[in-house]
């Protein structure tokens, strides 16, 4: 099976092959290195004119990408670690996402910023964070996070070629070596995929399971943990869940309503458990719970979040494991809710 890393790499290659307006800017991109996580491997050899290895200047490369996008190219900026997206915050918030609307619709910035996020590699407090929650509430920014249920490379390719608004593309580091799952690997699950949109939402339940008592929702690598938890909850605890896995984290539907797949599941279960790797407060899960509370009122019977501890992520393996959400954390929370 193809790994997420291979898939992303293929997606980039496909975008480069398909459209001469695609450029890649980032640190240490040149072959044989191909970027710190190797997602960009092979591109600098095949497209030396369109792959620009850069100084260590995150803000400037985001800005350069924005300028290129303003002038009709389709640049991709690779940030070596998502932790350094903080250095890009001003470009992202006060320029990149502002231009289209503040220039009265007369400018567009089709820029994709991709970056790895997440811990479990022992990289310590400044190289392990899951910071996308900072960017989910920025008007005008599309945030995408691939998972193993559909083709990450295709999501990336289409984000680059088909989106005219800026895209922040989040890749969990631990997801890179994982296989993109085929039908066989998912044979135990009944799966619904929401509409033909290029950023699909998957809803999973075990084949033959009774109506769900609890809705789990997670994205990216956390969807792997959630899937495992769903299976164990069913087999070990006879607690039947549905799992909703979006690939588009922002923007969410207007007027504060939930993503339709999530609303549909919740209408059945009445209970919502979100799982995210970012720290607890003001995260992705908070927004899901808030929308659920608004939309379902007293029909929302229970709502909880599993998230990282509100602290820096320790370097020591034992401490890091304790700080980040685990399958056990999901099992515990789920069992307390039903």
């Amino acid at each position: 099976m193809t790994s997420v890393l291979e898939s992303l790499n293929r997606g980039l290659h496909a975008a480069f092959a398909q459209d001469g307006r695609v450029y890649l800017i980032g640190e240490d991109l040149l072959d044989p290195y191909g970027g710190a996580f190797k997602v960009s491997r092979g591109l600098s050899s095949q497209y030396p004119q369109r792959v620009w290895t850069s100084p260590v200047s995150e803000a400037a490369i985001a800005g350069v990408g924005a300028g290129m996008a303003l002038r009709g190219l389709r640049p991709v900026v690779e940030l070596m670690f998502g932790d350094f997206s903080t250095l890009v915050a001003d470009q992202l918030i006060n320029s990149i996402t502002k231009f289209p609307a503040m220039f009265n619709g007369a400018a567009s910035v089709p820029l994709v910023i991709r970056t790895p996020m997440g811990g479990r590699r022992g990289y310590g407090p400044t190289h392990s964070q899951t910071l996308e929650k900072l960017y989910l509430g920025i008007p005008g920014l599309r945030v995408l996070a691939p998972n193993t249920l559909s083709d990450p490379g295709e999501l990336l390719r289409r984000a680059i070629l088909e989106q005219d608004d800026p895209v922040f593309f989040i890749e969990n580091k631990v997801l890179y070596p994982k296989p993109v799952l085929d039908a066989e690997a998912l044979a135990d699950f009944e799966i619904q995929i929401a509409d033909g949109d290029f950023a699909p939402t998957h809803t999973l339940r075990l084949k033959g399971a009774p109506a769900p008592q609890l809705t789990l929702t997670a994205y990216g690598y956390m969807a792997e943990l959630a899937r495992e938890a769903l299976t164990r909850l069913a087999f070990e605890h006879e607690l039947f869940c549905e799992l909703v896995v979006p690939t588009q984290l922002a923007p969410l539907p207007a007027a504060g309503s939930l993503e339709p797949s999530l609303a549909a599941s919740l209408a059945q279960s009445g209970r919502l458990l979100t799982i995210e790797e970012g720290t607890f407060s003001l995260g992705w899960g908070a927004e899901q719970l808030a929308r659920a509370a608004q939309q379902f009122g007293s029909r929302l019977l229970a709502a909880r979040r599993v998230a990282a501890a509100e602290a820096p992520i320790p370097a020591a393996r034992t401490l890091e494991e304790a700080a980040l959400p685990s399958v056990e954390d999901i099992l515990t929370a789920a069992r307390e809710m039903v």
Partner: protein
Amino acid sequence: MRAMPDHAALYRQLYTIRRFEETVLDAFPKGAFYGTTHTYIGQEANAVGVLAHLNEGDIVFSNHRCHGHFIAYGGDLRALFAELMGKATGVCGGLGGSQHLHWKDFYSNGVLGSTAPIAVGTALAEKQKGSDAITVLFLGDGALGEGTVYESLNIASLWNAPILFVVENNHIAQTTPTELALAGSLAARFAAFGIPVVEMDSNDVAKISSAAQHELAELRATRTPRALVLNTTRFGPHSKGDDTRDPAYIEELRTRLDPLTLHAAQLPASERQAIESEVDTAVAAAYAQAEADPPPPANHLAKVAPP
């Protein structure tokens, strides 16, 4: 490249910017505008002198003090007044306001220094596209406090971006004199990144224009970055009524260095007066038109930023 504009044309532009800005400062206290503004009075020769040498398609990145750049670029007076008034006919339909303009290949933003990498990106994009367009980026001395500017100089130099960095050093940033904000040498900061730099001490539009013409010709020939440091003067407040400098000092600057007076000497008085009265009329008409223009429709924001 355009031919060197004649003295009358230069004077007309200088005077248009001056009249526009005076009108803004006069009308602000009367409640004609909302928000804030930063006028270009005293610096007119920079925009006029540099932008005289742009070709169609060349890109301009400007800052908070953008009215003069916009007008010298060829922007419409009524649309600019309307933007400041928050009218539907404004440059950006009232969404941007005084510091956030975009029209054709002109862009401005209000976060100091943030434009630098973006401007470099536009210059690189045009080069990649095989167009002849170059980019001109205006920065104030104060903006040189921002780190992104240096990241951008480094990248512009490494990647040979066809961009002209223009520093308008009016010796003050809001209320802070340059000595309190900039250590070392301003020009040396460009040289340190391998960017050729020319520094000038003049408010004479003819001198600035000819220096800019030379720099832009070199830039177009080599398609590599260059810098122009223009030591200049701000006669007005930073925005409105917030000048902390001694009025006598400003009066002295005005007497000695007003770019309009300096350039007026190149024209017969009658020609100058004719230009002035034409411009007075045009500016007044633009103002009146903008005033009569409708506000944006209530749902306008939702149209450009769908909820």
